[in-house]
């Protein structure tokens, strides 16, 4: 019996104004291709979730916890939605990202591995270990 390790990846779709300048026929094709792509990945068990994000929203930042308004619709970098993938490896995640029907119209897909543990927490643990080692020495 063989065991297969699966890895989780997040696809972040950037640029949510790619529909500008497309004819109704072109747009219809992208819409139906995109939905068929999502349904196929779900049926194959490779995509376990995904959602579009609304253009409105807020950004919270700083010591004063300032709340600023979106919108996020006007930028090529804005995140418009995501897919959650469970696949064999990074190559498979990249191959799936390459199938995104929005790519030829300017969409950008960021492929990010989902981490077991937050990188800051990992660094904090490494510091503590080093300090402990230093104290023992």
């Amino acid at each position, binding site marked *: 019996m063989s065991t297969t390790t699966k890895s989780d990846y*997040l696809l972040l779709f950037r640029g*949510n104004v790619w*529909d500008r300048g497309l004819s*109704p026929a072109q747009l*219809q094709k992208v*819409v*139906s291709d*995109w*939905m*068929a792509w999502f*349904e196929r990945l779900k*049926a194959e068990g490779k995509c376990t*979730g995904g*959602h*579009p*994000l*609304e*253009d*409105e*929203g*807020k*950004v*919270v*930042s*700083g*010591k004063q*916890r300032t*709340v600023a308004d*979106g919108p*996020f*619709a006007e930028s090529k*970098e804005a*995140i*418009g*939605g*995501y897919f959650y993938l469970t696949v064999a490896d990074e190559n498979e995640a*990249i191959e799936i*990202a*390459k*199938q*995104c029907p929005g*790519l030829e119209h*300017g969409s*950008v*897909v*960021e*492929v*990010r*591995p*989902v*981490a077991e543990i*937050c*990188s*800051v*927490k990992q*660094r*904090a643990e490494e*510091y*503590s270990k080093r*300090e402990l080692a230093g104290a023992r020495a």
Partner: protein
Amino acid sequence: MLLFRGPHWDRGLSTDELQQVMDKVMAWFEGLNERGKIKGAQPLGGQGRVISGTDGRFVVDGPFTETKEAVGGYLVLQADSPNEAVEIARSMPTLRYGISVEVRPILAECPIFQRHPELLRRVTDPAAEQLWVAVAA
């Protein structure tokens, strides 16, 4: 969805400070979890790729962790209102160390598709049609 941006907020903190902040973050997370506010949350690895161009012909390597805009993790909230989501974002303990939190409503359907409602009825893929019906119901 909360997107946490700026994953290098721990730079310049002492081990003790960092440990304290991490404890606060864990307590914050557990508190939200106990109240049933968290539907999903993951940190993202610093590695990854960016795919762009027709058929995904451009594949650029990360890392994504060096900028203040980089997304270091996400949290899907079950909030009762947009205000509650913003208030939860404002209570994130690492805000004072320079991260920012983007608060984005999750949609059942993509805003680009919403801008062209006539296309939704014309989507030819049967699986997709089923999904739109489910969304409408």
